[in-house]
């Protein structure tokens, strides 16, 4: 029973991929474009890509930059977002900047970050950070702001002091939006990472993509792209799972697991 349900829920993903791969294979076999090799050719070079010198280091370095940059984005984004929602002066001081940066094309800031942090991993961490910090911040802000007056009044009438009101009402109420911000921020930070590594210094995973691309190894390039895609997809799926577990109560559907 359990197994059947699992398959039922995976089936749509598989059926969605099948036609794309089929089309891909057809285009590949017809040799229409050098950019689209046969799937088999791509599969054949996986071993070469993964075992090439520097692959491991590139991956580890990228993951480290990503971890630090995204971690900082969560810390600052959640902290400042919550502070803006709770303290009027903080909100008034920062609102303009947040709104300005929310819609800004972040890639434009990359040269600036290089000027500040120099050509190196510092600038890459900063790129990862700046790509996601605002979306995390804005969602946290909105989440904390959305605390219901009715519930806050209820808590007060049962004798809850301000700290308890924050921990028991404001925080749980903010979780759905906060986690949405984290999930959106994750994908943005992955883009930031690859972009930073390609634009700033040709290092890490983005660097590998650059090098492979400029040596016209399209099949190997596709392997790298698939790896990056898988990371973004799996991370995003994992965060969706966390969100479902933590704030399943907020789903509009009545039953638990209605997302599946």
């Amino acid at each position, binding site marked *: 029973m359990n197994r059947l349900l699992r398959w039922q829920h995976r089936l749509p993903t598989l059926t969605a991929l099948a036609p794309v791969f089929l089309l891909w294979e057809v285009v590949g076999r017809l040799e229409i474009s050098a950019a689209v090799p046969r799937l088999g050719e791509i599969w054949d070079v996986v071993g070469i890509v993964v075992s090439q010198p520097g692959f491991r280091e590139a991956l580890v370095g990228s993951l480290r930059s990503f971890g630090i940059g995204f971690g900082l984005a969560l810390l600052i984004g959640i902290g400042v977002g919550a502070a803006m929602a709770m303290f009027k002066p903080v909100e008034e001081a920062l609102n303009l900047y947040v709104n300005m940066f929310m819609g800004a094309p972040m890639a434009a800031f990359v040269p600036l970050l290089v000027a500040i942090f120099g050509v190196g991993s510092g600038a890459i961490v900063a790129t990862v950070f700046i790509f996601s910090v605002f979306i995390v911040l804005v969602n946290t802000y909105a989440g904390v702001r959305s605390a219901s007056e*009715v519930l806050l009044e209820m808590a007060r*009438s*049962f*004798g809850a002091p301000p700290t308890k009101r924050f921990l*028991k009402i404001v925080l*749980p109420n903010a979780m759905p939006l906060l986690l949405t911000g984290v999930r959106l921020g994750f994908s943005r930070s992955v883009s930031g990472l690859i972009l930073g590594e390609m634009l700033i210094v040709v290092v890490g995973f983005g660097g590998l993509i650059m090098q492979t691309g400029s040596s016209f190894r399209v099949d190997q390039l596709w392997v790298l792209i698939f790896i990056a895609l898988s990371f973004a997809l799996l991370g995003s799926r994992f965060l969706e799972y966390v969100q479902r577990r933590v704030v399943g109560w907020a789903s509009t559907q009545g039953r638990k697991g209605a997302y599946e």
Partner: protein
Amino acid sequence: MIEVQNVSKVYSDGTRAVDNVNLVIRDNEFVSLIGPSGCGKTTLLKIIDGLLSPSAGQIVINGYPVADPGPDRGVVFQDFALMPWATVLENVAFGLEMRRVPRAERLHRAREQIRAVGLDGFADRLPKQLSGGMQQRVGLARALAVDPDTLLMDEPFGALDAQTRHLLQEDLVELLENRPKTVVFVTHDMDEAVYLSDRVVIMSPHPGRVVEELDVDIERPRGSGVRKSREFVNLTDYVWTRLRDAVRTQETGA
């Protein structure tokens, strides 16, 4: 005993929500505050709870002036005010948790109240999985769990359909027979006020004032048949006449 002494509330926009109200509520008395919207009945209830501070006057409970919410009063809210992320059990235990009752004891007491309001077997559900009537039973259980002397109920059944409302009224009466409490009950429903109350306080709006205090001398226990009795019909009729006057005076500006 709850004394409302010369209480007025003026909001910052100048609205006189409550204007010099005096009221004495005896222990274990059921008092309804009834009136059209804007008569300050909910404001007065919140002042009694200490959620709002009066602009003038004071609330004295058992001889002591009170200004803050206290464990002697439990509120049942109009929109249920349940935490959507918490189970029925956690919601009912919330007041006890805020009062620092140890976990094992508060869960035990919460379970007792869940049983008392007829929600056996629903302890682990989320509020959204319950009907409106059941949700308000949770709200009632939460207020009862802290075992207050006084229940403050703010149009608790106003959001429910007529049938459910009747059922909850009857269950409330039964609960109070087993565990007498002082109740201040805000409503705009005349039947509800007369059926439940020992005394009905009729209020008029702009500014919020007490027009009349009316004793309800219908014998208890009151079965659902009471609603058809001559006394009941006469009393609700009378309340309506007084309310109509209050509303008309205001509507015509006379």
